[in-house]
């Protein structure tokens, strides 16, 4: 059986494959992984290093205010159930996407916030990429800054599905994510350095957007870049891909809210 088939079998058996699944020949060795931060110019790094120079700070501050805002028919705020956000949310973003056993599906942080809104605040869910939703995700993500990315143990099947998407050739250019980000990271594409694509800092301020956006928005850019149809926001495929990318970045430090070109 080839290496890929073996990994799929292990995943299907529900075995905690983290420790024993063989790395594909093309996987970046764990000790050679670099954050996109290391591949940016000194000026852009300086923007991320100084909270008072980082436009994403506004999003975090907005999120902190939203955390206290009573909303929905239940007129509850996040704080009413969770208490102080800085304590309650410490380390949470580092463990997402997670598996919602009640709903029997994987959820990312944005989906989790919306579940809280509908179930507990009795409010309508935020639409994808909504400014308030991004602000809450930035605020929650900020509470994991500096902590290692730690995917939960029960996500192996979802991660395997994400790996399959990551390695599949797609779109009019017939490229897979792996071909750029595993095989050609560090080289230049149209004057820009190809990063290894570790989602260590989402939501982040992307210079290209001149705004703060989620990993799902960035993945949309990637898919359009290879002339493939992007996955719908919040779709199982997009969450599986997110889960795989976070597993691929396991142990790397959360940088939220980051800055990227």
């Amino acid at each position: 059986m080839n290496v890929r088939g073996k990994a799929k079998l292990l995943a299907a058996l529900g075995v905690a494959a983290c420790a024993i699944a063989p790395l594909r020949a093309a996987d970046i060795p764990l000790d050679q992984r670099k954050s996109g931060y290391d591949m940016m110019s000194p000026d852009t790094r300086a923007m991320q290093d100084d909270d008072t120079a980082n436009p994403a700070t506004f999003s975090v501050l907005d999120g902190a205010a939203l955390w206290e805002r009573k909303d929905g028919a239940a007129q509850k705020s996040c704080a009413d159930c969770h208490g102080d956000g800085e304590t309650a949310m410490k380390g949470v973003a580092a463990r997402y996407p997670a598996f919602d056993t009640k709903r029997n599906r994987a959820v990312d942080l944005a989906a989790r916030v919306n579940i809280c809104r509908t179930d507990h605040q009795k409010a309508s869910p935020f639409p994808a990429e909504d400014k308030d939703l991004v602000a809450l995700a930035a605020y929650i993500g900020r509470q994991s800054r500096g902590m290692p990315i730690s995917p939960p143990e029960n996500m192996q099947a979802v991660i395997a599905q994400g790996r399959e998407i990551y390695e599949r050739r797609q779109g009019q250019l017939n490229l897979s994510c792996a071909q750029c980000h595993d095989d050609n990271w560090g080289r230049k594409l149209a004057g820009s350095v190809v990063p290894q694509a570790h989602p260590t800092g989402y939501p982040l301020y992307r210079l290209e957007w001149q705004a703060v956006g989620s990993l799902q928005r960035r993945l949309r850019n990637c898919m359009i870049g290879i002339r493939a149809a992007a996955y719908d926001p919040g779709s199982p495929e997009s969450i599986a891909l997110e889960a795989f990318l976070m597993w691929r970045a396991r142990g790397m430090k959360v940088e939220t809210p980051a800055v990227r070109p």
Partner: protein
Amino acid sequence: MTDITNASRRDVLLGAGAAGAALLLTLRPLAASPESMDAAIRKLTGGAKITEGRIKLDIPPLVENGNTVAMSVTVDSPMTAANHVEAIHIFNERNPQPYVMAFHLGPRAGKADISARIRLSDSQNVVAIARMSDGTFWSHTVSVIVTLAACLEAVSN
């Protein structure tokens, strides 16, 4: 965009306030060019001599993204009441219009050292001009290469 614009007509439009701004939007998009940048610079200096030196414009030669380019500018000046920088003006050659930013200082600055983030829509020259308290003008020109991000969103933004 490579329109060669009529500099004197542009001057009238820039001076016409709100009505002029509305008129600007209905015309074909203007674009700066080395000529229109020169005209804007001449408007600042009134034709006075500009000497290269004393001012240093710091911009990375290859920018990661033209939407946000880190720029800093310093001027060698004692910044005393008798001898200081009054203003620093930044111009560009190929954005839709030639003005980038202007900074007004004085002896209370202590140091002529400013940084900001600017937009550059194309590879081009960027020019910084300092006007000193003695009426002299000094300049520094930097050539910058601007490339697009490789992976973009479709259509809007």
